[in-house]
């Protein structure tokens, strides 16, 4: 890459300004506010606040509801990541084969990424609603008691599917790029060495995709942790009971519905720490990771 040296300091700062402004206004300021809020306790009328140190954190971490939400998040994000990556990899492998209409197929697969989370949730609602959803109706007619508004397990399954569906496109693009960067002759060499397609996939393609897979795993976990609020909110609202209440959803419930700002802020700070940790792991790994 070409290196440009600036004479003064005014122009570089001017060029950096938009990015710095975005970072400050949309990240540093709210993050700072959240951290400040997390060590305060407000009175019920919101007129006075008192410094309480780390008490909000201590209370959150022992709260059974928070632990329940943490467990939900673990189940939810792992399932979303596995489902979204697994389906995307399968679709990418199919798309990588030279097929007629391959480009149309690839374009269609990318569309779900452009659908807003709430709209995606409504699409799935129309499919799985027990009385008006196509699949929901069919399930009930087939004798399966399907009602995600009553059954926590079914509700979790539905939000997982809806959230994963939205992420498949993103993963698909990366997997497809990863597959296309594997030299064709390496696969031909494996074929001549006697490896059948399934074996070629597991011994050659899959290991060579591992850097891509790891990157996507982190991205998918972060997505499931933070970007799935819309899907959950529109589909189940965290219910039934608290069956689909994840950590991010609980931050909203705590802050907006229960107006417990200190606790809500403390929970969002914990989430922030988690995402920083995930990103740090990813950067360390990428630095050290072998690139083929």
């Amino acid at each position, binding site marked *: 890459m070409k290196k440009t040296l600036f004479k003064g300091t005014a122009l570089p700062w001017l060029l950096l300004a938009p990015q710095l402004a975005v970072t400050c206004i949309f990240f540093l300021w709210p993050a700072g506010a959240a951290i400040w809020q997390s060590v305060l306790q407000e009175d019920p009328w919101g007129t006075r606040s008192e410094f309480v140190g780390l008490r909000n954190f201590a209370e959150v971490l022992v709260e059974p509801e928070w632990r329940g939400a943490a467990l939900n998040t673990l189940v939810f994000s792992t399932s979303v990541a596995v489902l979204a990556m697994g389906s995307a990899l399968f679709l990418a492998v199919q798309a990588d084969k030279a097929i007629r209409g391959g480009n149309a197929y690839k374009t269609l697969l990318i569309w779900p990424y452009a659908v807003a989370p709430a709209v995606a949730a409504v699409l799935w609602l129309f499919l799985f609603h027990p009385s008006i959803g196509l699949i929901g109706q069919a399930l009930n007619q087939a004798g399966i008691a399907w009602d995600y508004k009553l059954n926590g397990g079914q509700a979790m399954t539905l939000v997982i599917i809806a959230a994963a569906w939205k992420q498949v496109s993103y993963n698909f693009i990366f997997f497809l790029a990863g597959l296309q960067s594997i*030299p064709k*002759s*390496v696969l*031909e*060499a*494996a*074929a*001549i*060495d*006697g*490896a*059948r397609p399934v*074996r070629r996939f597991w*011994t*050659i393609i899959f*290991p*060579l995709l*591992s850097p891509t897979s790891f990157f996507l795993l982190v991205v998918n976990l972060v997505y499931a942790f933070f970007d799935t609020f819309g899907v959950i909110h529109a589909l189940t609202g965290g219910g039934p009971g608290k069956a689909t209440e994840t950590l991010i959803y609980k931050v909203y419930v705590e802050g907006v519905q229960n107006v417990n700002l200190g606790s809500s802020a403390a929970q969002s700070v914990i989430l922030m720490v988690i995402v920083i940790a995930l990103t740090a792991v990813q950067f360390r790994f990428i630095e050290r990771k*072998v690139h*083929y």
Partner: protein
Amino acid sequence: MATLDVSAVSKSFGTNKILHGVDLTVADGEMIVIVGASGCGKSTLLRIVAGLETATTGTIRIAGRDVTGLEPADRDIAMVFQNYALYPHMTVAQNMAYGLKIRGLPKPEIATRVAEAATLLGIQALLDRRPRQLSGGQRQRVAMGRAIVREPKLFLFDEPLSNLDAKLRVQMRAEIRRLQRRLGVTSLFVTHDQTEAMTLGDRLVVMHAGHAAQVATPMEVWARPADTYVAGFIGSPAMNFLEGSLTEGGRAVALKAGPLLRFADGPRPGAEGLPLIIGIRPEHVEATEAGLALPLDLVEPLGSETVLHGRLPDGEALTVKLAGPAPVGGAIQVSLPAAALHVFDAASGKRLDPVA
């Protein structure tokens, strides 16, 4: 160790015909070099033998067994690729062991065979490295090793030396030849480099536009090229071609450039006045005191010899290779020895041999 029979193999991509019915029989332990310019179908032919492409028509037999419809895995062949195609996530030892593992050989035997092949190629010290830690020449050796350990019926080489620098290429070329002789494995070697072809092959297949223009030993191809394409492709600098017509009842040619040359080896068939192409290699043209005048427009001194480019009186280009330093002056006189002439039919480009 096996024979290979390619019969009437053709290949089309859509309406684009790449191979027009190629026949080839390879004896046990023979090294055949398929040589031709890019786009002549040589790599396609190799890939069809490997099973990486399917032939549109024709059959492939390895050791007498029809393998036309079989997967590469079932053909018991090994291939060395131009870009080496090593498995980047495996060590050298794992690369070599991969095919053996798939065949379910016991671990101690795999280890023995890998060690043997590594010793043979002088790469014992590299067994624990990964491909990206190796130089081009080392990678090529590993690719060879991966082919050798399998003890296949057939070796296929797809321009394996093209990515190496000139010095290494010469060295690896000799090594491949020695190895192939020693192991006695039937081999097909594809290249666009005529020197590689001449030095490596027991026999050559000169490909041109999807046809096997000539299948013969390197010396035969050089001394008796089957048509003008082969004649121009093999030999450096390339053979000169001069226009002429058959005369004196087939015993001589009247060159457009002037002189009448009598054939040294007997009369050619054909009507009086049949248009001919006369080929003569630059090294066979002789400089004389009184002959055809050749004004020179380019002189290339190569040290031990000199290549001269000029134009004959009728405007045809002629290249001459002379031993020793460049002659003084802007023109020389040349003669074309009758014994060194190659006679081709101008219409078909085919070689015209004397009537027996």
